[in-house]
């Protein structure tokens, strides 16, 4: 990934289209998960407008789902702080994902880079990094894949809120396998040899150990940082 790239980094309409097309295999799974969140939100008293606001602004399925557990209508400064910390830790992996995009998106004008990053989600980040690792340079790929994910997430959560009950249990249809299976499909082509063996091995061991030892969602960040450092020093 260190060789010079032929063209400057830009966001083109063709790239946006390419990114949207790359995401369609995931959309049924995201729509079912979104509908399930919408139905759960309805049970907690969310209106359709509130569901749309949450999906549109927060745009983080796992964090939205987890936060729903402790949702109240009497927010205090203390409970809002707890909510902020919960959201921050559940989604802290995005902090690392965004950091990893610096060499690529850092070549864009600031407003384009930060605007694009607001659409960062697990799936489109993983797909865009694979695209970039294989020589792709059009940041529109990241924007388009993020945009389509945002639209499908927003629409499906609102649909779930409106329909309410009767949404099938996502687990029965193995929807919870969609994202990890997609991650594996993104990982396999990145295997090059020793560096990956060390980095991925350390990430796996440390994240699993941390998932037992550390409460909450820290295990992702702890495992990822350990694996990245191991990969960075794997050549000595």
């Amino acid at each position, binding site marked *: 990934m260190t060789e010079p790239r032929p063209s400057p980094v830009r966001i083109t309409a063709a790239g946006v289209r390419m990114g949207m097309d790359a995401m369609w295999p995931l959309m049924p799974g995201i729509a079912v998960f979104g509908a399930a969140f919408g139905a759960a939100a309805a049970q907690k008293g969310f*209106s359709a407008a509130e569901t749309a606001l949450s999906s549109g602004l927060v745009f983080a399925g796992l964090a939205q789902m987890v936060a729903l557990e402790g949702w109240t209508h009497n927010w205090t400064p203390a409970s809002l702080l707890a909510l902020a910390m919960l959201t921050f830790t559940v989604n802290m992996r995005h902090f690392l994902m965004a*950091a990893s995009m610096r060499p690529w998106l850092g070549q864009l004008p600031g407003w384009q880079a930060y605007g694009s990053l607001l659409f960062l989600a697990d799936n489109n980040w993983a797909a865009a990094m694979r695209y970039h690792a294989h020589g792709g340079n059009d940041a529109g790929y990241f924007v388009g894949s993020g945009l389509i994910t945002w639209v499908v997430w927003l629409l499906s959560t609102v649909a779930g809120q409106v329909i309410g009950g009767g949404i099938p249990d996502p687990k029965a249809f193995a929807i919870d396998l*969609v994202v990890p299976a997609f991650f594996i499909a993104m990982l396999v082509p990145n295997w090059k040899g020793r560096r990956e063996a060390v980095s991925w091995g350390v990430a796996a061991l440390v994240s699993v150990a941390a998932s037992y030892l550390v409460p909450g969602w820290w295990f992702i960040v702890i*495992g990822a940082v350990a*694996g*990245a450092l191991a990969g960075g020093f794997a050549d000595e």
Partner: protein
Amino acid sequence: MSSALDPGTVLAICVMAGATMFNRTAGFFLMRLVPVTPRVRKILDSLPGAVLVAIVAPTAVHGDTAMAAGLAIAFIVTKLTHSDFFAVLAAVLVGASLRYFGV
């Protein structure tokens, strides 16, 4: 809910949005302050794979048999077809079937 937009709910949503927007942008911003030496570059290059593994490995370990089997199938199908679509489809079909039969 009685009202379409309850002020407390809107406030809480905005707090969450602030946290997710911070996560989405702060890591990118901070990397501007880190000089990208060859070493940092290698660490950054290793980061995407490490993040994915750190999510998938605990998911596989803590999941049920259907999860483990589905993820194994996803690996095999990716190897054979190089298609993320078929990998996800196979994982879901295997996972849902196993759960249907109560494995």
